[in-house]
């Protein structure tokens, strides 16, 4: 399997700040790869390093096997969809899309045809004559996508492209992007701070924190087997049990994670391989599809329990805040966490 992008011990420093710190990633050809992390975690800098807008302070970046360090953006076979779309305001939609072909010297007839095809692909066939200001946010987003894809790049970089769209449109675009990626079979590298988005679209996700990678894994593994406390808490919600209680419950000194939906109310005799803890019900939050119960444990730690509201008109009145409660979970649902950033993957 060829690698689309390979980072080897890449660092990027801005003054004293290490935006990217000894990051190594292998991104497979044809993969939908997401870079997930809070703002300032280095994910966008990594994307800019691939695009060539930044040069690494140390380390090496290979794009399809070729050393890319030192190459200018226009010398790289990658294209970017920008967060603010970066459409040229003085050109109409078709000229925007055809721009990449124009600067590469593609003949006019061909570039108009290919631009029209690209616009058809993003369902903006009749919009060629319009100026970007006459389009809605979602339409601009599609134009930006068509403008990048018309060059037939082997790697497409997407820098939080859905961030400015409202929820419905965002969900729709997520589906379309995923479909497009399968259709074209090219590598998508997608930067986002939205973990749901990353989980639902990606083949693999890299979780960034403070310039380092905490974990690279499939969405399922990321959620089910978080490697570090950061991943456990950033991807979905999690109960991270630390300290003496962790040692008592799991037998290991490391903290562990248990997902709220894997915790259930105690009923009947304790089965083997189950763990039971006691606490006071502190808060009940009705969330529509689920109800969340917040327990205060004896040592002061909070434990969340999430119960799916599968019953029609399920009522939650059987529990009162302040009442003592016992909850259980299966031992195998506990994931032991590392507190340190692993860095190496």
């Amino acid at each position, binding site marked *: 399997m060829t690698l689309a992008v390979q980072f080897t011990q890449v660092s990027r420093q801005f003054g004293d700040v290490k935006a990217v710190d000894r990051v190594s990633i292998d991104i497979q050809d044809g993969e939908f790869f997401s870079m997930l992390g809070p703002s300032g975690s280095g994910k966008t800098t990594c994307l800019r390093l691939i695009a*060539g807008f930044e040069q690494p302070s140390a380390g090496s970046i290979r794009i399809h096997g070729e050393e890319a360090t030192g190459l200018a953006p*226009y010398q790289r076979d990658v294209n970017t969809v920008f967060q603010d779309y970066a*459409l040229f305001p003085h050109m109409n939609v078709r000229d925007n899309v055809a721009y990449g072909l124009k600067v590469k010297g593609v003949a006019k007839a061909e570039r108009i045809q290919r631009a029209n095809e690209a616009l058809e692909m993003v369902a903006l066939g009749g919009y060629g004559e319009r100026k970007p200001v006459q389009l809605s946010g979602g339409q601009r987003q599609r134009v930006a996508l068509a403008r990048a894809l018309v060059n037939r790049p082997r790697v497409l970089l997407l820098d939080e492209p859905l961030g400015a769209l409202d929820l419905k449109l965002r969900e729709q675009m997520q589906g379309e992007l995923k479909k497009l990626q399968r259709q074209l079979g090219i590598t998508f590298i997608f930067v986002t701070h939205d973990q749901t988005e990353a989980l639902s679209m990606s083949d693999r996700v890299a979780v960034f924190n403070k310039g380092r990678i905490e974990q690279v894994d499939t969405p399922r593994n990321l959620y089910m087997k978080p490697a570090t406390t950061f991943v456990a808490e950033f991807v979905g919600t999690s109960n991270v049990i630390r300290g003496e209680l962790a040692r008592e419950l799991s037998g290991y000194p490391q903290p562990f994670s248990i997902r709220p939906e894997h915790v259930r109310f105690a009923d009947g005799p304790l089965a083997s391989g189950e763990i039971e803890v006691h606490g006071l019900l502190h808060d009940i939050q009705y969330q529509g599809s689920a109800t969340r119960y917040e327990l205060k444990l004896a040592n002061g730690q909070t434990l969340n329990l999430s119960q799916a509201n599968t019953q029609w008109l399920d009522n939650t009145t059987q529990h009162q805040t302040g009442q003592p409660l016992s909850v259980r979970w299966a031992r195998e649902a506990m994931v032991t966490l590392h507190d340190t950033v692993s860095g190496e993957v």
Partner: protein
Amino acid sequence: MNTLAITRTPAPGSPLRRFSNLLYRRPNLYLSMLLVPPLLWFGAIYLGSLLTLLWQGFYTFDDFTMAVTPDLTLANFTALFQPSNFDIIVRTLSMAIAVSIASAIVAFPIAYYMARYTRGKTKAFFYIAVMLPMWASYIVKAYAWTLLLAKGGVAQWFVQHLGLGPVLQFVLGIPGVGGSTLSTSHLGRFLVFVYIWLPFMILPIQASLERLPPSLLQASADLGARPRQTLMQVILPLSVPGIAAGSIFTFSLTLGDFIVPQLVGPPGYFVGSMVYAQQGAIGNMPMAAAFTLVPIVLIAIYLSIVKRLGAFDAL
């Protein structure tokens, strides 16, 4: 529920409060109060005097008695097309065009550097450096240039030491450009004009480049454009409004100027100096008024050309 409800009838209020409430209820009144004084000033004093002046262009000037009589005539305006007057117009117009083009070429790199590469204190330094020459009197600067460009002045000394004396002689020999020395040549006048109006070109271009999002340039490079292509396809087209705004300054200021043409360059009137001479020394107010119309018409034509080129589309 008396604990929460604080019942207080609105105080009758001072006249000032009632007035401010009135303004709040009637935003148009508020707006007109803001706009009427400047519009009165602009309309009555500025436009009014200008129109009065232009109206005088239709009056008759008696060459013999040197008296102005309010007998309406088109003679002054037709006189503009006499060869001697038309020469003045052509001379002024070509200088204004040349100065605008040269200013744009010189200003662009400075403006680009200011907009994209400086920040904080460096940017403030550049602002001050660009505007500093405007702190000194314009006449003093023009005089200073006559000395700098004079025979045996700094400019010529410098050119001689670079071994470029023959080149200078050749340039000064070109008709329409040269003259006997730099300070009495068209070239010298042109240099002084470019020097004096340059800040008016730098600042608008800088402002237009400042508004250019960096992601546009990155997008251009990302799509495969070399730096030169990015400059021609993205940066220049988007800075056209700035260049247009700057050129309106340089163009109109050169058209109306009457000091520099007197101090630097070969003899011969400019439109500005012609107006000055007609209404001052000669007392031919109608002819001066007719000449005043020339820059107004030229700038109107210029603006319509610039507008047709789409320079204001991005505003």
